[in-house]
């Protein structure tokens, strides 16, 4: 099946906050989260983040950003609302005050995509893009009428839960990806692989405290259970997706990885065997970690900078809540 990434776009709120201010405001929560860690691990948790600021939803909420990103992606691909056959919302944290149901339904109305099939999946966090792509490919392969899919995510950190130390600090953003079947424009999808480990579901959990949603990070679980297999599982998926296309790691032209922290990006760089500085710069310092939008943001930046040339191989990789790992391979 010939499915391409016809276009991609993102939107971020104009308001921002310094990461140092976030960590200062959430100091009690951060200290409580890091309490189970050793002094060395505690110190490491705040070092090497590589994040200076995050964008914060204010006047524009996640849905507004989703609509903006989707409209931009549609304009870029030259697609009208009535051309969209599937809308898939894979937001993880759409906002406490957002509609309970998937953004996809309202989006179909606002984009005049009245005949689209509207779906949502709430799984995967930063790894959710791969789940969304694989789900869309599944629908496309089993339903001849689904030829154009719009995948969206719009996320905002719950109030008071912007710190996800020892992992990252979250910024708000939304993004949209349009997949087209039998098109001629955009990178051709070669493969998508994903895996989940349910026994790690408590590593990052969403709980209700005093009537408000709060993200609880189990730092000991992250340190002792997730991290030992974090890159191993990602590496397995990379090998699997490459083997299916008879390709090897050294043939990849662009690694598009999430903006969790500079420390994490360094780990990924070592994992794929790139030299120091081998991963492209991203706007992570300005945006923070924006959930599953990271990959779209980084892809869009590479394209804007003119770095992606026809025929080049792109490997998207990320891992997140669930715990979930995912890798997508495409040829520009």
């Amino acid at each position, binding site marked *: 099946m010939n499915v391409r990434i016809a276009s991609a776009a993102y939107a971020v709120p104009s308001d921002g906050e310094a990461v140092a201010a976030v960590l200062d405001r959430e100091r009690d929560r951060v200290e409580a989260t890091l309490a189970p860690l050793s002094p060395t691990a505690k110190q490491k948790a705040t070092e090497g983040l590589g994040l200076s600021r995050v964008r914060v939803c204010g006047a524009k909420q996640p849905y507004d950003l989703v609509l903006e990103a989707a409209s931009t992606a549609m304009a870029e691909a030259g697609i009208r609302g009535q051309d969209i056959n599937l809308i898939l919302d894979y937001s993880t944290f759409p906002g406490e005050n957002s509609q309970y149901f998937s953004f996809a339904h309202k989006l179909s109305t606002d984009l005049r995509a009245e005949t689209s099939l509207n779906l949502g999946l709430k799984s995967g966090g930063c790894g959710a893009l791969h789940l969304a792509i694989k789900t869309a490919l599944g629908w496309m392969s089993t339903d001849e009428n689904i030829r154009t899919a719009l995948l969206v995510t719009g996320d905002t950190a719950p109030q008071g839960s912007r710190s996800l130390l020892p992992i990252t600090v979250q910024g708000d953003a939304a993004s949209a990806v349009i997949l087209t079947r039998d098109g001629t424009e955009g990178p051709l999808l070669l493969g998508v692989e994903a*895996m989940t480990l349910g026994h790690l579901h408590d590593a990052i959990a969403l709980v209700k405290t005093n009537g408000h949603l709060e993200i609880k990070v189990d730092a000991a679980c992250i340190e*002792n*259970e997730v*991290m*030992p*297999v*974090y890159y*191993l599982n990602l590496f397995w998926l990379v090998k699997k997706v490459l083997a299916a296309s008879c390709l090897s790691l050294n043939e990849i032209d662009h690694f598009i990885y999430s903006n969790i922290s500079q420390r994490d990006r360094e*780990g990924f760089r*070592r994992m794929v065997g790139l030299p120091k500085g081998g991963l492209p710069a991203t706007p992570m310092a300005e945006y923070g970690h924006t959930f599953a939008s990271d990959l779209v943001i980084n892809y869009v930046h590479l394209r804007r900078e003119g770095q992606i040339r026809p025929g080049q191989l792109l490997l998207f990789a990320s891992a997140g809540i669930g715990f979930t790992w995912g890798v997508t391979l495409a040829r520009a």
Partner: protein
Amino acid sequence: MTTMEIKNAVRQFITQNVLLGVHQTTIEDSTPLVIGGLIDSIGMIGLVAFLESHFHVEFAPREINVHNMNTLDQIEELIRKKLAERKSYAAGSKPQAG
């Protein structure tokens, strides 16, 4: 292959290739390798690749976790289980799940 042979092969590989610059002269059978910070996530990739090639076994992602890879004792037990599975396959019978 004896227990000692498995442990010595793994011990030698870890000492020569994976240790995170820690001056650990000996790795005891019960030394916590992962929880103790001697092997990180990237080191695990190398260790698993070594185990697969040296012992001619193959792991599925869900088979590897900190509870069966944290010490030489645990790694030896895991390898022994995989070798038994392989032998069972070779004999034409299906191994029990779990």
